[in-house]
C-alpha cells in the first residue's frame, strides 16, 4: 500500500530484490522516484515523520522504542522491525526523540514529511532519558526525578527467561524487592515486600497500578483451609508476563508521595504492551515443560522408631517403592506445564491496537494441585485529533486453581514427613497418616476466578505548554473459593475419619476497585535554560470487598457435592467492607538546563477509615536531581560517560483497616433464635494513618563507553504512628484487639545495581548485572506504656530494638543426660550472658525472621546475535527459619520419629534438652540461600527457517528453573512459610510440611508473522 511505502521507505529493499531484470528495475526506479516525490509531498501535507530506530552498535532494529515529537503528545512505538510513523506534526521542522529501556536517547531535528529518519540508540546501562510514570501526565524522565526508580524491561525478559508469573518476573530483578513464596504449589502466591517491613499490623503490600489504574493487590486469597496452610493465591499473578511491556517500581514514600495514603509500601506500575503503527504483526508463543520435586530421596529426612526393641528406619525411597507397588503410582508426580500465547498488534498513525489471548495449564507434583486459566487482552490507542489521545486497556481472565492440602492440613507432605517404620510392614505401608490417594479423593479445594480490568485514559494537550490527563478504570475480581471434603463412607474408619462424611464451605467474593484520576501539568520556560513544571491532580479511589459464604458438614449420601445436600453444622455469612480515598496534590518542578532539577510537592488525603477525630493527612515531598556530568565545569573524562547525583525526602502513609476507628456491635442470633447483638470492635476515634518518612540519596553513573553502569541508593525510612494491633484487656468485654497509632519502625539500607558489558562485538556480547540490597529493619519503639513486646506469632515478637517479627525463645545453654538419656540440670540463657533455671528463664533473641540482604547475579551471553545463554542466581541472607518439619517429627505430634528421640545419648545434651522440653530454639537456624533460579538458552532461528514457517522471525528457548540451592538451612526448603504463609498471618517464618519450590524444565517456541 502506498501509505506503507511512504511510511517506511522500503523501496530500496525491493529494488535490490529486482536486480537482474533491467526493465523491471527501470520501471521500479521510475516508480520509486515518483512515489518518493509523491509520498514526500503527501507526507509533508499530512505532517508525517517516519523512520527507523536501530541499535547503534549492532545496527539491529529496536522494537518497542518510544519515539515522540518534543513538546507535543505526538508519538508512537517502533514495530518489530524498528519502524515508526508519526502523523499530524505541525510546521516544517520538529525534534523527534527516541527512548528505550536499556538505551540512551536519540534526539534529532527533522523535516516534517521526512519518512526516512534514522535514529540510532546506544546501549546505555543507566539511561537517564527513559520516561517513567510518576503520577503526573506523560511521566517524567529519570533525570528529572530525585529518586531511584527501578525499571524492568519485561518484553526482553520474557524472551529468554522461564517466567510464568508476575512474582517470578520481579524476583531478582529489582534491588530490595523481596519475593517470599510460601509453598511450591502451582498457583500459589508470594508475599512481595519493598524496602523492608514498615508496619506492625497492617498490610505490607505495595500498591499496584496497571496502565494507570489501581488494582486489587491482595497477595493472599483462596479457600479458607489455606489460612492453615501456605498455598494462598496472589492476585498479582493474574497478570500475564507476556502482556507486560515494562514494570516500574517506586520503592518508598520519597518516590511515591504523590500516591498518598496507602503508598508507604511502595508503588509498582505495570505498563502493558501497545500496538505500533505498521503492518499487522502476529506473535505466537508456545511453552511445554515439566514441574518436578527435585531430589526428594535426598531431601526428605529418614524417620526412625523402635521395632521389636531395635531402632529401625524408613526413608522416602522405601516409602515410594511400597506405594508404587501397592497402588501403581509415585507419591509425587511430574507435572505438565503448558502455555499458549497469541498476539496481534499493529495499526496506523492514528490508531494502534494490541490484542492477545493466553491459555495456561500447569500441574504441581501433588495430584490435586493444578491451574488452568485463559485470559484475553485488548489495548487500543486512538488519536482523533492532534490534541487528544485516548487509550483503552481491557483484560479478562477466567480460570481455576486447585490447591492440595498441606502444611497443618495434612496431605502428602504431612503423611510423608511423618512416615513411620513401625508400620512399614502393616497395611499403612509406613505412611504417617492417610495414603496420598485418600487425600486426593477426599479433599477438593479450589478457587475459580473471573476478573475484568478496564481503563480509559484521555490525554489532552490544548497547548504546547499544558497537558491534562483523565484516567478512569475498574478492576473487578469475582472469585469462588471452595473447600470441600467428599463423602466417602469407606474412608470413615481410616485416618480421614469424620472428614469422610463430607463438608463444604464456599465463599463467593467480589472485589471492586475503582479509580478516577485527574492530573494536569503546565510547563513554562521562565528564562533561557530555566523551566517550571506545575502539576496538580486529584484522585478518588474506591475499593470494595464483598463476600457471601455458606457451608456445613455431612453430605446426606456419597456422591452429593452441593451445599444443599449437607445435613449439619450450617454456617453462612455475608459482609461488605468498603474504603474510599479522596486526595489532591500539587507539585512544582524547577529545571535548569536539563541538568539540575528541584521538585517540591504536597499531597493531602482523606480516607473513610480515618477516625472521626482525625482530619486530613498531608504528605510533603522535596527532591533534587543533578546531572553533574553535564555541567561545563565537570571535566571531560573519557571513562566517565554520565553521572547524576540525587536526593529526595518524602512522606506517605497507610490508612487503618476499614472500621477499625469505630466502636461497633455485630448482629448475632440470640436466645430462641431471636435477633441480638454482641460487642464487636472496640474502636479508636483518634485513629489515623501510619506515616512513613523517607530520605534517600544516591547516584547513577555510566562508565567506559557506556559498558558499565552503577546505581547506588542510601535510604532511611521511618514509620511513625505505626498502627499497632494492640490486644485489649478482655475484662472490658470487647474484641481482642484495638488499633492505636503508637509504634515506630525503622528501615535503613542501601541498594546497588551494577550492569556491565565486558564483551561487545559483532560475534559476542556479554552482559552481566548484580543487584544487591541491605536493609536494617528495627522496631524503634512500641509506644505502649507497660507493654514490652507484642506477639507476632508463635516464638516471634515485635519488640523495641529488634527486627519486626524477631525470633524469641528460651535457649538451653547447658544440660546433662542421665543414664536413661533424659536431660537433667538444664540451664537456659538468662538474657544477660549468664545461665538460669529454664523454668524462670526469659525468651531471648535468636535472630531475624526476615532477610536483611537480598540480590541477584545475572549473566547473558549473546553469540552471533542468534544465541543467548542466560542465567540468574538470586539470594536472600540474614533470616532465620524454624524447621517445623523437625519439630513435628521429633516431638510435637507423635512423640517422635526422629532418631534424636530414640537414641538421645548419641546427641548433645543441649539438643536433647530442647527436644525433651519442647523448646525449639535449636530449630531456629540460618535460612539464607543462593538459588540458581533461571538458566536458559535461546536460539533465534535463521531467516530461512523462519521463512519456511512463513514467519518473519522465530526463536526457541530451552530453560530450567529452581535448579540448585546453596544453603546452610537443614530443612527442606529455605523459602517455605507455614501457617498464614503469604496471608501474612502468624508463624510466617516456619517451614512445616510445605511443598518445596518446584523445579522445572521448559521449552518455548516464539514465532512472529
Amino acid at each position, binding site marked *: 500500500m502506498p501509505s506503507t511505502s511512504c511510511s517506511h521507505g522500503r523501496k530500496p529493499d525491493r529494488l535490490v530484490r529486482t536486480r537482474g531484470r533491467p526493465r523491471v528495475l527501470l520501471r521500479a526506479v521510475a516508480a520509486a522516484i515518483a512515489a518518493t516525490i509523491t509520498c514526500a509531498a503527501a507526507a509533508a501535507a499530512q505532517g508525517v515523520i517516519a523512520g527507523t530506530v536501530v541499535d547503534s552498535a549492532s545496527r539491529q532494529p529496536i522494537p518497542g522504542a518510544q519515539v515522540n515529537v518534543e513538546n507535543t503528545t505526538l508519538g508512537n512505538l517502533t514495530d518489530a522491525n524498528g519502524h515508526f510513523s508519526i502523523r499530524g506534526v505541525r510546521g516544517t521542522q520538529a525534534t523527534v526523540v527516541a527512548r528505550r529501556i536499556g538505551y540512551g536517547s536519540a534526539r534529532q531535528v527533522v523535516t516534517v514529511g521526512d519518512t526516512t529518519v534514522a535514529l540510532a540508540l546506544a546501549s546505555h546501562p543507566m539511561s537517564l532519558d527513559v520516561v517513567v510514570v510518576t503520577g503526573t501526565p506523560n511521566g517524567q524522565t529519570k533525570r528529572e526525578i530525585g529518586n531511584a526508580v527501578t525499571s524492568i524491561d519485561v518484553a526482553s525478559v520474557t524472551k529468554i527467561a522461564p517466567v510464568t508469573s508476575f512474582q517470578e518476573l520481579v524476583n531478582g530483578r529489582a534491588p530490595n524487592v523481596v519475593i517470599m513464596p510460601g509453598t511450591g504449589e502451582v498457583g500459589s502466591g508470594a508475599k512481595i515486600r519493598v524496602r523492608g517491613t514498615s508496619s506492625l499490623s497492617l498490610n505490607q503490600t505495595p500498591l499496584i497500578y496497571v496502565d494507570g489504574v489501581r488494582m486489587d493487590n491482595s497477595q493472599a486469597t483462596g479457600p479458607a483451609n489455606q489460612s492453615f496452610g501456605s498455598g494462598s493465591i496472589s492476585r498479582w499473578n493474574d497478570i500475564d508476563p507476556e502482556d507486560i511491556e515494562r514494570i516500574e517500581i517506586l520503592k518508598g514514600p520519597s518516590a511515591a508521595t504523590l500516591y498518598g495514603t496507602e503508598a508507604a509500601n511502595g508503588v509498582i506500575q505495570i505498563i502493558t504492551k501497545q500496538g505500533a503503527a505498521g503492518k499487522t504483526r502476529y506473535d505466537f508463543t508456545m511453552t511445554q515443560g515439566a514441574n518436578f520435586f527435585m531430589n526428594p530421596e535426598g531431601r526428605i529426612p529418614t524417620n526412625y522408631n523402635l521395632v521389636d526393641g531395635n531402632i529401625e528406619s524408613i526413608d522416602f525411597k522405601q516409602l515410594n517403592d511400597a506405594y508404587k507397588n501397592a497402588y501403581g503410582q509415585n507419591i509425587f508426580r511430574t507435572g505438565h506445564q503448558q502455555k499458549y500465547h497469541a498476539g496481534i498488534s499493529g495499526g496506523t498513525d492514528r490508531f494502534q491496537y494490541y490484542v492477545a489471548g493466553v491459555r495456561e495449564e500447569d500441574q504441581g507434583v501433588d495430584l490435586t494441585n493444578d491451574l488452568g486459566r485463559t485470559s484475553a487482552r485488548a489495548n487500543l490507542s486512538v488519536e482523533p485529533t492532534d490534541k487528544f489521545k485516548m487509550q483503552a486497556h481491557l483484560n479478562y481472565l477466567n480460570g481455576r486453581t486447585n490447591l492440595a492440602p498441606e502444611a497443618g492440613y495434612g496431605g502428602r507432605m504431612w503423611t510423608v514427613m511423618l512416615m513411620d517404620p513401625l508400620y512399614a510392614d502393616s497395611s499403612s505401608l509406613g505412611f504417617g497418616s492417610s495414603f496420598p490417594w485418600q487425600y486426593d479423593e477426599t479433599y477438593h479445594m479450589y478457587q475459580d476466578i473471573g476478573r475484568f480490568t478496564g481503563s480509559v485514559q484521555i490525554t489532552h494537550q490544548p497547548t504546547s505548554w499544558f497537558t491534562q490527563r483523565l484516567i478512569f478504570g475498574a478492576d473487578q475480581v469475582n472469585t469462588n473459593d471452595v473447600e470441600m471434603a467428599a463423602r466417602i463412607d469407606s474412608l470413615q474408619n481410616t485416618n480421614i475419619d469424620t472428614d469422610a462424611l463430607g463438608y463444604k464451605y464456599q465463599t463467593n467474593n467480589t472485589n471492586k476497585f475503582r479509580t478516577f484520576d485527574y492530573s494536569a501539568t*503546565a510547563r513554562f520556560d521562565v528564562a533561557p535554560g530555566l523551566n517550571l513544571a506545575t502539576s496538580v491532580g486529584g484522585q478518588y479511589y474506591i475499593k470494595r470487598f464483598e463476600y457471601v459464604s455458606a457451608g456445613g458438614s455431612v453430605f446426606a449420601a456419597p456422591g452429593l457435592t452441593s451445599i444443599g445436600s449437607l445435613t449439619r453444622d450450617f454456617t453462612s455469612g455475608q459482609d461488605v467492607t468498603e474504603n474510599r480515598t479522596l486526595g489532591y496534590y500539587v507539585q512544582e518542578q524547577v529545571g535548569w538546563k536539563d541538568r539540575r532539577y528541584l521538585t517540591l510537592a504536597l499531597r493531602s488525603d482523606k480516607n*473513610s477509615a480515618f477516625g472521626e477525630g482525625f482530619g486530613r493527612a498531608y504528605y510533603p515531598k522535596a527532591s533534587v536531581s543533578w546531572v553533574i556530568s553535564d555541567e561545563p565545569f565537570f571535566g571531560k573524562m573519557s571513562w566517565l560517560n554520565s553521572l547524576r547525583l540525587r536526593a529526595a525526602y518524602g512522606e506517605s502513609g497507610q490508612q487503618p483497616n476499614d472500621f477499625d476507628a469505630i466502636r461497633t456491635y455485630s448482629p448475632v*442470633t440470640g436466645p430462641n433464635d431471636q435477633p441480638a447483638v454482641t460487642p464487636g470492635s472496640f474502636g479508636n476515634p483518634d485513629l489515623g494513618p501510619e506515616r512513613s518518612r523517607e530520605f534517600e540519596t544516591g547516584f547513577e553513573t555510566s562508565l567506559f563507553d557506556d559498558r558499565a553502569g552503577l546505581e547506588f541508593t542510601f535510604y532511611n525510612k521511618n514509620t511513625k504512628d505505626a498502627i499497632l494491633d494492640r490486644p485489649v484487656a478482655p475484662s*472490658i468485654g470487647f474484641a481482642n484487639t484495638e488499633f492505636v497509632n503508637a509504634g515506630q519502625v525503622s528501615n535503613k539500607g542501601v541498594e546497588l545495581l551494577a550492569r556491565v558489558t565486558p564483551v561487545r562485538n559483532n560475534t559476542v556480547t556479554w552482559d552481566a548485572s548484580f543487584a544487591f540490597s541491605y536493609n536494617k529493619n528495627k522496631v524503634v519503639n512500641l509506644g505502649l506504656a507497660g507493654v514490652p513486646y507484642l506477639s507476632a506469632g508463635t516464638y516471634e515478637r515485635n519488640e523495641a530494638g529488634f527486627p519486626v517479627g524477631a525470633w524469641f525463645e528460651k535457649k538451653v545453654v547447658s544440660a546433662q543426660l542421665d543414664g536413661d538419656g533424659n536431660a537433667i540440670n538444664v540451664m537456659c540463657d538468662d538474657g544477660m550472658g549468664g545461665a538460669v533455671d529454664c523454668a524462670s528463664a526469659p525468651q531471648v533473641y535468636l535472630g531475624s525472621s526476615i532477610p536483611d540482604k537480598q540480590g541477584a547475579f545475572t549473566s547473558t551471553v549473546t553469540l552471533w546475535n542468534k544465541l543467548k545463554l542466560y542465567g540468574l542466581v538470586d539470594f536472600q541472607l540474614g533470616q532465620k527459619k524454624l524447621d517445623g518439619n523437625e519439630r513435628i517429627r521429633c516431638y510435637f505430634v507423635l512423640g517422635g520419629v526422629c532418631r534424636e528421640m530414640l537414641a538421645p545419648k548419641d546427641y548433645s545434651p543441649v539438643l536433647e534438652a530442647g527436644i525433651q522440653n519442647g523448646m525449639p530454639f535449636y530449630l531456629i537456624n540460618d535460612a539464607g540461600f543462593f538459588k540458581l533460579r533461571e538458566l536458559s538458552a535461546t536460539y533465534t532461528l535463521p531467516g530461512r527457517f523462519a521463512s519456511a514457517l512463513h514467519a518473519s522471525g522465530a526463536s526457541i528457548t530451552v530453560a530450567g528453573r529452581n535448579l540448585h540451592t546453596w544453603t546452610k538451612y537443614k530443612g527442606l526448603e529455605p523459602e517455605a512459610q507455614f501457617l498464614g504463609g503469604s496471608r501474612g498471618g502468624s508463624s510466617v517464618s516456619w517451614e512445616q510440611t510445605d511443598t518445596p519450590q518446584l523445579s522445572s524444565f521448559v521449552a518455548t517456541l516464539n514465532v512472529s508473522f
Partner: protein
Amino acid sequence: MRLHTRPDAARRSRRGVILLGAALMASALAACNSLLDVPVPSRIPANSIENPSNAVLLTNGAISDFDCALGSFIVVGAELTDEFEDATATAARWVYDKRDVPTDNERYAVNDCDAEGTYVPINRARASADNVLRILNAASDSEVPSGVNRGDLIATLYPYAGYARVLLGEMFCSAVISTLNPDHTVTYGTELTPQQVFQSADSMFTLGIAAAQASGNTDALNMSYIGRARARLDLGEYDLAKADAQQVTDPDYVHVATASATTTRRANRVYGESNTTGTASSVGPRYQGMTYDGVADPRVQAVATGKTTSRGLVEWAQLKYTDPSTPIPIASYDEAQLIIAEADARANDTPGAIAIIDALHTKAGIPTYTAAGGATDQASVLSQIVEERSRELFLEGQRLYDVIRFDLALQPAENTPYRNGGVYGPAGAALCLKLPDVERQNNPNLQ
C-alpha cells in the same frame, strides 16, 4: 515569562484551563464528605444502638453472649477435669487435657466461645450484661419501646451478670472486672480473687432477686436464687446457700441456655464436641458405662463410637445432648437440691442429705442410696454428694469447681506422662487457670 505559544492565545488558554481545573477541584472538595461515605451493612456503630430503645435487642445479645460462653466453659472445664479427654490431633488443645495451660496460651486467653476460648467469652458475657443493665437502669420506662417491661428485662439480666461472674471465679485463679463508661472510656478493674468474684456475683444475684420480686418475674427469681446459692456454695457459705436453694420449690424448674442448629455460635457446644459421628472430646473413663448398684445410671450416658485415635484413645461419645439444639441447663431444681444436701451434710444432717440423694435416684430410676446400703457417716455422705453432683450435673459445667473446692484427685495423676507428650499438670485445688497474660499486660492496673 516566555511560553511556547503566542502570548495572547496562551493567556486565554491558560485562563480557561485554570478555571476548569479550579472548578473541578472545587466540585470535588464540595462533594468530599459524601464521597467518603461507605456502607456498614454488617456492623452497628455503638452510638446508634446503646440506648433504651434497643432494650430487647441488647438484652438478647447479653443472653446470647452468656449462652455461648457457657458452652465453651463446659467443654474446657470437662477437658480440664475427668469428664472429657481430647481426641484430636490438634496439639493446641492438649494443654487443657493435660492440665498444663501456660498464661500466654492464645486458645484459652484470646479465642472466642466457638474455639475453646474461655476468658474472652466469659468476660464478654459479663460486660454485656453489665453494660445493658447500666443502660436500662439509667433509663425511664418511657424510653423503652411500648410493650417492653424495663423492670422485667433488668430482672432477667441480673442473674446472667451474676452467672458470668460465677464462671469467671470457678475457672480462673484470679480475674478482673472492668467497666465500660457511658462516655466510652474504660474503668479498668484490679485483680480479684475467686472469693471476691463470687462476692460480686452474690451482689448481682441479690439485685436480681429484688428486681425479679419487683417485676414478678418468677423464672428470673428462681434463677437468681439458685445462682446466689451456687455463689455462696463456692464461697463456703453453706447455710446461706441452702437458704437460697430452698426458695426454689418447683420440682420441674430448670433455666436453660437455648441452642439451635441455625448457626455455629448457637449450636450446643458440648454436642458439637462429642457425638456419635464426631468426637473431638471423648468421654473420660470414669463416666464410661456408669452404673449405680449394678444399674445403668441414665444421668450419665455415653457410648463407644467404635473408633480409636491414632494415639490409642478409644473414643466415647456423650449422649446427654442429642443434637445441636439440645438446651443446656444453667440452673435447676435438682441442682438446688444438691446444694441443700451438701449444706445438710456439712452440718452433719446426713439424713436430710440422704433423703435428697434418694429422691434424685428415684427420679432417675436407679436404686436409692439407702437401698444400696450406702454409709451414713458424714464423710461418706459428703463423698456421695460429690459423686451425685458429678452424675446429676454431668457436662453442665459444675465438675471443675467441685474438683477445686473438694480438692479432688484426678486420674491420670500429676506428672503422669501424657499420651501425646509431656506430663499431666496438677489437679485438686491447684487446677484453676491463671490470669492470662493478655489481661495482665494490657490492663494498666496490673502493671
